[in-house]
């Protein structure tokens, strides 16, 4: 990772249609720090992550970001007709991190699924694949949207290990979840 990663939100507001989901949100995270975003369904957790990722423009406020971002969203963005290995390789090649892919797949226990088409995956397996892509991306800032969805206990442990390793290397994790995901966050954001 190049240079210390940093993420700062200043007075962020989110407007969806006519509804104001949140406003005046401040958050500052440095290298190795993490935030857990909680809140009811529809409170704007996913919108906040999409704003940090640059996919949504904030209605007000400012986002300062140092470091590359990886977004693990609800939509898997894996070609359903392809074997998992090939589907993940497409993204790893875009990121220029093909070398990190086998390790990332092993970290989420996906090695045995390499040749299985993504269409046949269960919810949990698909989530593990998305997390593996996030690990392999080598990005400094991980944005995890409900990363625990559909994961079994063993996979949740693997997720916790991966997040701890990422934070240990000076990364940043922002996770939105309404279930425990084994993250001891530096800050907690309630929407």
């Amino acid at each position, binding site marked *: 990772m190049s240079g210390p990663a940093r993420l700062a939100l200043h007075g962020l507001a989110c407007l969806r249609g006519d509804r104001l989901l949140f406003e005046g949100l401040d958050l500052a995270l440095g290298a190795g720090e993490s935030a857990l975003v909680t809140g009811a369904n529809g409170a704007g957790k996913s919108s906040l992550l999409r704003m940090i990722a*640059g996919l949504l423009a904030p209605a007000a406020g400012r986002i300062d970001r140092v470091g590359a971002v990886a*977004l693990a969203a609800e939509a898997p963005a894996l*070609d359903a007709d392809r074997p998992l290995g090939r589907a993940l390789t497409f993204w790893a090649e875009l990121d220029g991190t093909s070398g990190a892919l086998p390790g990332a797949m092993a970290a989420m226990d996906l090695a045995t699924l390499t040749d299985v088409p993504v269409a046949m995956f269960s919810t949990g397996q698909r989530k593990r694949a998305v997390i593996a892509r996030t690990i392999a991306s080598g990005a400094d800032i991980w944005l995890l949207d409900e990363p625990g969805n559909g994961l079994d206990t063993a996979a949740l442990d693997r997720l916790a290990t991966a997040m701890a390793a990422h934070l240990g290397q000076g990364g940043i994790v922002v996770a939105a979840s309404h279930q425990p995901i084994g993250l001891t966050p530096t800050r907690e954001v309630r929407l």
Partner: protein
Amino acid sequence: MKAMTAVALRDLRIGWAQGGAALPLIFYLLVATLLPFAIGPDKALLGRIGGGLLWTAALLAALLPVERLIAPDLNSGTIDQLVVRGMSEEAIGIAKLAAHWLAFGPPLMIATIPAAALLGLDGAAVARLEAGLALGTPGLAALALGTAALTGSLRGASALAGLVMLPIAIPLLIFGAGALDETGAGAMKLLAATSLLLVAGTPFVTGAALRAGRG
């Protein structure tokens, strides 16, 4: 550039692997096969109207892939992931346009050879038709992509896509069919100009539509 190549290659692969790229071709050949049955075996008549009919068939064939160009990638989050990686929506549009034309234009021009034979077009007419398609199919591909981006976030958009796309395609049809005439050099130039305008504008339309759809 590397990302654009990767996206274009992926689109090409999906087009052929899932059969989406073959559909317009089959449709085009089917029209050419059915027409002599409907109009009757009058060789002179078929030769006179065949070129224009093939242009109409090409235009309608261009509509078929609209639903698979953008909507699946929007729904699967692929476009979001590309944007998060710093790829601009316009670059996505250029990559997708290149891939779509490669899957659509050259195969259609190859299919024109048997189709023209079925309609009894003579060699000179086939040459003019092929030249017109070489200039016009990029425009048709661009129109299909722009329409796909505009209707991508709507459900059941295929009927709407026809309404959006066909009126804008009329100039391509007029100049394309006009260029079939022996004195159609002017129409050929206008066809090229229309096609160029569509190709140049589509990445920006696609980019704006993708950004607005994310809203």
